[in-house]
């Protein structure tokens, strides 16, 4: 399966995503520059983390207008999988692929730490490799991760099973507050109505190798393979 990894000026997790796809799950990956107009046959798109366009105006606001995003939005519209991580999540919200917005962390601090998450829905394209209610640890690294939406949207996300991941207390650091950024209803990751676009602030692509700690991000990439090959 071919993964297309979008690189914007300021992306910095594109290589981690590439490595997760090529080395951890043994699939093909290609970098797609933000000025490209062609997804080069990619089936799965990854919008990686970083600081596209220096986070000018708002995180993700400018990247949304990159030429490649027109192709990504059309691809998502056809039901193709899109994994939007961290800055990618911010871009996906700005582009209207996902509801809501990501605002400045409540603490006003950039938070870089392993964080506890509960998999809220294991039937999605991206989470079917996890056990029900499984608690995992993934790294986060962001300053603008406070998920916000109106109550009606939040109710709909919860009612339709679109909340994929929620922040929970980390078993390794039980004293820490579990919600690192003030996200509404502790939401860390969501899927769109069609279930083919995932947005999440934590970094699964940085947790695919036991050498770097618990490889809790690996089942996410494997989930995509299971479902698409099924």
């Amino acid at each position, binding site marked *: 399966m071919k993964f297309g990894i979008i690189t914007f000026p300021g992306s910095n997790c594109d290589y981690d995503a590439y490595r997760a796809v090529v080395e951890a799950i043994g699939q093909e990956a290609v970098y797609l520059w933000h000025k490209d107009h062609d997804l080069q046959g990619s089936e799965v798109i990854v919008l990686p983390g970083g600081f596209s366009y220096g986070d000018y*105006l708002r995180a993700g*606001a400018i990247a949304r207008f990159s030429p490649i995003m027109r192709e990504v939005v059309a691809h998502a519209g056809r039901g193709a999988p899109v994994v939007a991580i961290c800055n990618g999540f911010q871009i996906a919200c700005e582009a209207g692929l996902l*509801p809501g*917005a990501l*605002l*400045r962390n*409540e603490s*006003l601090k950039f938070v870089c730490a392993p964080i506890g998450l509960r998999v809220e829905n294991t039937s999605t394209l991206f989470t079917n490799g996890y056990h029900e209610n499984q608690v995992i640890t993934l790294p986060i690294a962001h300053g603008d991760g406070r998920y916000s939406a*109106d109550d009606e949207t939040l109710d709909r996300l919860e009612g339709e099973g679109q909340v994929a991941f929620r922040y929970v207390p980390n078993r390794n650091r039980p004293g820490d507050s579990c919600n690192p950024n*003030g996200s509404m209803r502790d939401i860390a990751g969501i899927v769109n109505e069609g279930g083919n676009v995932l947005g999440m602030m934590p970094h699964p692509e940085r947790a695919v190798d036991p050498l770097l700690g618990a490889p809790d991000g690996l089942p996410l990439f494997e989930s995509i393979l299971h479902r698409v090959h099924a």
Partner: protein
Amino acid sequence: MSRYKIAVQVVPRRGLLDPQGKAVADALHSLGFSNVASVYVGRHMVLEVEAADEGTAREQTNRMCAQLLANPVTEDFEIASVLSA
């Protein structure tokens, strides 16, 4: 065509938590300005726009705000002033 200097204000929507505004309000309180009820920190942008008339310039600026300068999910915007440049 005339040139207009248009000032736009974008502020976090009332009711949404604005931690920056809250931090600034707390600092003002500690300076003794206890009468400050709330602070919202937003952005002030100045655009120079060529347009046939002021109405057209305003209408275009409103569309710019709705499409890019403000996030309709979390922010409100208003045109603070329009001057002939």
